[in-house]
């Protein structure tokens, strides 16, 4: 029996900032003090508050240490674990009140969250199946196999109102029923863990923090749809997730929770991990299946749908990681419990990866219908450095942006679609006044041009033309006619592309055009970039009354574009200036302006 448990985050964010070394050092320190049988150190999955990593929680006190460094470990062991005095300077500031230490769930970041898919992340050791079982793990599978018929399982999932969390929002129970209805000698379950949206990392965190729940859910799906084999297609860029999945699968096999005759029910199910190799289009379900088969991951025309002819031409059910992560809890707690959360047509919770210009970058899970304002200001802690919020981008390269005046929109599938945005997989990137929306649209098009598989012309050629027009606009050579052309081409690509990638690739352009048309106009008519991002449209100048003539900028300028006598105001020769901004950084008197 241990008297204390130290939970250290082992998600990718905290591992990147050395949490493994913190664990090793702590184990060594504990041993040196003879405490190794009294205090247990556990490496968990992601806590969510990545901005303050590496994160450590000590139980039973529940005290939350943030931004812990390896050098802090001896002090924590000596003061807290040996003498019982918390190391106040390392406590997450918000938890410290004059009277007492607040629990984590009372902090702004966690208070409004509701954790279903992430319920075990940051709580259990993902590499130990016993911890998962202790948190009701594999109970749902046992219930399905011993008490429910496949039809009943599908009915529960249908009644829960769960919709695909990968972005499309298709009702999960309905999808399962399509595969179940088809007769075949072999059917498959596929888990889409090819999380390609830049800025989205919720699937990775679930796989790293709670891999067994995906295994359990896939086995349940197999039982419900009549499949006996499953594949998890996961990005090779997620080494920690891959390793933990493999460990989890091996443990489940050893315990007979995968393999032949699970729970003596006569149901067989086994799982395999397939590594992706870095192609965004493989997140599209038919492309993903083509890739598992060992080919270039090009999408296939639908119909036939995967439920009829999917992986290896057999009926296949494919769901996203987060969708699966909800299944065990739905089976355990019932459809009504799940359907009691969320809005009329979007039930349950959604995980968002908060990134960009926001104080609390990290992972949050909120009930559907929470407003963007709550997510950004209450949970996310607002915009750093006193800057103004400009827009939030959701849905990655397939999505759009939500401007400030729509911040009170309750977030669910239908509301976001109505404003020309999409839920997407849940990446939520916050942008402030310093981000240029035309540049952001160009950034996403640059991405889709790179990632278009080239199979169909509207996407292959169309996205490239879009990028060229955006390039023209951001370099100051655009005309008003270009903006019209841009819009027209967007609709053409949307209507004519083969798969989801092409059909949604113009969204970032359309959505920025809709809400930030004035910025496009500023680029083509005034030849200005209001946010000061597009280099070709910037010019640097020196305000004569502020310049002290210290000559520092002239010395720093790499192209000799600045001239002026000592103690006299300097000037910049704009024909020579390469707009590198070194002068502005070096000026101590803030005399150099960029506009």
């Amino acid at each position: 029996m241990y008297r204390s448990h130290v939970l250290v985050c082992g998600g990718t964010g905290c591992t990147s900032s050395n949490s493994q070394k913190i664990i090793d050092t702590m184990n060594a320190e504990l041993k040196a003090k003879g405490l190794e049988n009294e205090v247990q150190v556990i490496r968990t999955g992601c806590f969510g508050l990545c901005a303050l990593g590496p994160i450590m929680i000590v139980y039973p006190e529940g005290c939350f240490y943030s931004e812990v460094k390896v050098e802090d470990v001896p002090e924590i062991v000596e003061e807290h674990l040996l003498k019982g005095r918390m190391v106040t300077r390392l406590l997450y500031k918000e938890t410290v009140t004059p009277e007492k230490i607040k629990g984590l769930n009372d902090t702004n970041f966690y208070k409004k969250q509701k954790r279903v898919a992430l319920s075990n992340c940051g709580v259990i050791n993902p590499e130990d199946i016993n911890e998962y079982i202790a948190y009701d793990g594999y109970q749902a599978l046992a219930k399905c196999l011993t008490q429910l018929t496949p039809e009943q399982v599908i009915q529960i999932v249908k009644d829960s109102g769960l919709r695909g969390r990968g972005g499309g929002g298709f009702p999960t129970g309905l999808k399962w029923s399509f595969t179940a209805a088809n007769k075949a000698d072999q059917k498959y379950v596929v888990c889409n863990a090819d999380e390609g949206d830049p800025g989205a990392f919720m699937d990775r965190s679930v796989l790293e923090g709670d891999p067994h729940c995906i295994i359990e859910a896939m086995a349940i799906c197999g039982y419900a749809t009549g499949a006996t084999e499953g594949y998890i297609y996961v990005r090779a860029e997620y080494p920690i997730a891959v390793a933990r999945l493999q460990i989890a699968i091996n443990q489940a096999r050893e315990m007979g929770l995968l393999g032949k005759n699970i729970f003596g029910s006569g149901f067989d199910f086994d799982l395999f991990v397939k590594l992706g190799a870095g192609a965004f289009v493989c997140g599209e379900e038919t492309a993903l299946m083509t890739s598992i088969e060992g080919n270039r991951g090009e999408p296939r025309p639908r119909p036939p749908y995967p439920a009829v002819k999917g992986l290896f031409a057999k009926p296949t059910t494919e769901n996203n990681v987060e969708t699966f992560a909800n299944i065990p809890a739905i089976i355990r707690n019932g459809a009504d419990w799940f359907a009691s959360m969320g809005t009329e047509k979007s039930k349950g919770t959604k995980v968002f990866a908060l990134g960009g210009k926001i104080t609390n970058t990290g992972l949050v899970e909120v009930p559907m219908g929470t407003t963007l304002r709550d997510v950004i200001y209450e949970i996310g802690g607002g915009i750093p450095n006193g800057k103004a919020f400009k827009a939030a981008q959701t849905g990655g390269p397939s999505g759009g942006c939500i401007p400030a005046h729509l911040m009170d929109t309750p977030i669910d599938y239908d509301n976001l679609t109505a404003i020309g945005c999409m839920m997407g997989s849940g990446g939520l990137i916050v942008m402030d006044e310093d981000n240029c929306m035309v540049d952001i649209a160009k950034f996403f098009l640059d991405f889709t041009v790179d990632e278009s598989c080239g199979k169909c012309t509207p996407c292959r050629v169309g996205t490239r033309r879009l990028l060229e027009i955006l390039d023209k606009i951001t370099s100051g050579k655009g005309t008003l006619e270009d903006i019209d052309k841009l819009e027209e081409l967007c609709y053409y690509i949307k209507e004519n592309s083969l798969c989801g990638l092409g059909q949604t690739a113009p969204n970032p352009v359309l959505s920025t055009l809709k809400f930030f048309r004035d910025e496009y106009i500023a680029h083509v008519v005034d030849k200005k970039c209001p946010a000061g991002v597009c280099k070709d449209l910037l010019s640097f100048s020196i305000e004569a009354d502020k310049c002290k003539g210290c000559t520092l900028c002239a010395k720093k300028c790499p192209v000799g574009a600045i001239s002026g006598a000592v103690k006299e105001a300097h000037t910049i020769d704009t024909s020579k200036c390469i707009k590198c901004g070194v002068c502005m950084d070096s000026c101590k008197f803030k005399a150099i302006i960029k506009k």
Partner: protein
Amino acid sequence: MLKKISTIPFKDTPEQAAKLDAVIAECTGDNSKLMHVMQVAQEIYGYLPFEIQAKIADGMNVPLEKVYGVATFYAQFALSPKGEYAISVCLGTACYVKAAQEIFDELSAQLGIGADECTADGKFSLTACRCIGACGLAPVLTVNDDVYGKITAKDVKGILDKYMN
């Protein structure tokens, strides 16, 4: 995506060849394992030179054109060798809005190489990648397995210096 193809002569050791032979022997006959074989080959050699693609095609009994097609389709497969220190700058959205492009440009200027290139001494190579999922630490770059988060263009020199000698 256009890939740079290496012109550096290919060399391998008997140990490397034996390792690859073993994987091919294990997987031949199952075309769905082609990518797995290529991933292992890249782990062994660091990249997939033409000679290795040809060997895999022969061993797996698939057309070379198919191996080449897969190699050029996926971003993970490299057709030219990486440097001793492979630097990868994340240009995913969260990093991009926090000025990751400036970091990439600074590295490019300091090393004198562009994207997917290697310095003449074989020491550093530079790539831009799309999101390693450490968005909480944006902007992020990696040097082999070391991760550097919350950096600015000004930190670039200090990071490179660590690997210089």
